[in-house]
């Protein structure tokens, strides 16, 4: 299946829930609603024609106006790649966990919670793991974060 065929298949089968975006530069990129996340991921994983059974990466992005969360998927038997994305405002940012679809999402989501402060529903182990145990200075990966001993590179 080529990238165009994949884009057409996804648009025709999941057209109500996935909308194509044009900012992806190498793989097909689709926008999804946060409420459809788990059901669409489960459908993509079980769909016999595409079978996206491998979750590569979950990233959270702080674009200075809102949060975006990006899921990079792969299909090992069919050798395909797909990206899913959704955005949400800063206040009360919450997403559902997809660890029932791919178990490997567990640590990725824990990291998003710890570094960005996005709450994850239905996660079984939302505890601190990258930062020191007594960290009390907020969520460091946000763009507006600062601390007294954080030294920025001086502008030239």
């Amino acid at each position, binding site marked *: 299946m080529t990238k165009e065929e994949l884009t057409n298949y996804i648009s025709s089968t999941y057209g109500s829930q996935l909308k194509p975006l044009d*900012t992806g*530069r190498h793989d097909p990129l689709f926008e999804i609603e946060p409420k459809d996340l788990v059901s669409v991921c489960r459908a993509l994983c079980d769909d016999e024609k595409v079978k996206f059974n491998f979750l590569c990466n979950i990233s959270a992005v702080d674009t200075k106006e809102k949060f975006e969360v*990006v899921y990079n998927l792969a299909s090992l038997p069919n050798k395909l790649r797909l990206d899913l994305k959704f955005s949400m405002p800063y206040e009360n940012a919450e997403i559902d966990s997809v660890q029932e679809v791919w178990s490997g999402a567990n640590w990725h989501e824990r990291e998003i919670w710890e570094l960005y402060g996005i709450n994850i529903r239905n996660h079984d182990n939302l505890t601190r793991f990258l930062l020191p145990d007594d960290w009390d200075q907020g969520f460091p990966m946000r763009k507006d974060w600062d601390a007294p001993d954080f030294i920025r590179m001086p502008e030239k």
Partner: protein
Amino acid sequence: MGKLKTEEFVVNMGPVHPATHGVCRLMLTMDGEKVVKIEPVIGYLHRAIEKICENRTYPQCIPLMDRFEYVTSMSTNQVFAQAAERLAGIEVPERAEYLRVIMLELNRIASHLIFYGVTAMDLGALTPFLYGLREREYIVDLFEMTCGQRLTYNYIRVGGVSRDIPPQFVPKCREALKIIGDKLRDYEGLLNENPIWLRRTRGIGHLPADLAISYGVSGPVLRASGVDYDIRRDDPYSIYDRFDWEVPVRHNGDCYDRYLLRLDEIKQSIKIIEQALDGLPEGDIKAKVSPNFKPPAGEVYSRVENSRGEMGVYIQSDGTNKPLRVKCRGGSYNQLQALPHFGTDVLVADLVAIFATLDIILPEVDR
């Protein structure tokens, strides 16, 4: 005599331990000598590389990405440069692509030689450590001849490579490959049929294929469990589709297979490098890229087949000369996540063997 009353207790392995490769802490709940539960505690090497990259230009990010995975830092350079090139639509000259493939495969051999030495040392055999690192010095000499550094190279840049190879590189490279190919027979003779090695690695730490896929495990660990997937062949990048080589796959998924698979991969890498040296064309080594490189707004997820699995970088650009977000993904992250689910019900000594053959490097996990 009645049944003896026993209790489970928690033993801390790490963060400073000779058999955890780096600063990994494993909290083991033990029932006597058997491990019942493993809880990895990480974060002791979290250096905030992703936060630093948001305040550096694209060429300045490449030396930082070197430190993300320092044993195979050519792959980290390649994955970042490839992502920037895909964002901006830059085409890399032919000679640069051939040089990139040669360096990537030499780095893969060097990393597997370290694996061989360190794994054997963890299981008590000290001689392979000296042999493996002795052969690695030939490869490191080649790197030093080309880019001046032994470990963190900063060689593959956006648009090509930074320097051309000197004239004595090609004969010395062929000589090094011949020596390594011969010594590989010695390594196999030392350990493959050794009864102690077989007792300690065969049948230990079986990783089922569906568990591996569900946890996102990739690379040699996945191929040793029977799943035939290699990014160089199935999702090709650079010019890997021009060479004739095989992807080794094994089916038992235990420590012995993971060890044998990496030795097989060294042989396939030697084949690729020889073909690349034979076909090396003349030409430019770098496309014209301005020092104030500003890719258009967009996002990309680029991946390479590292010696530890799939190494990926997700970059989002907003049109300025600094990336908006860089997220790195290493193969060891998912393998460490999967460890508590297949590494229990073994003795502590077997856990050391499982951990060693997973070939985990902590900066990939902690960033």
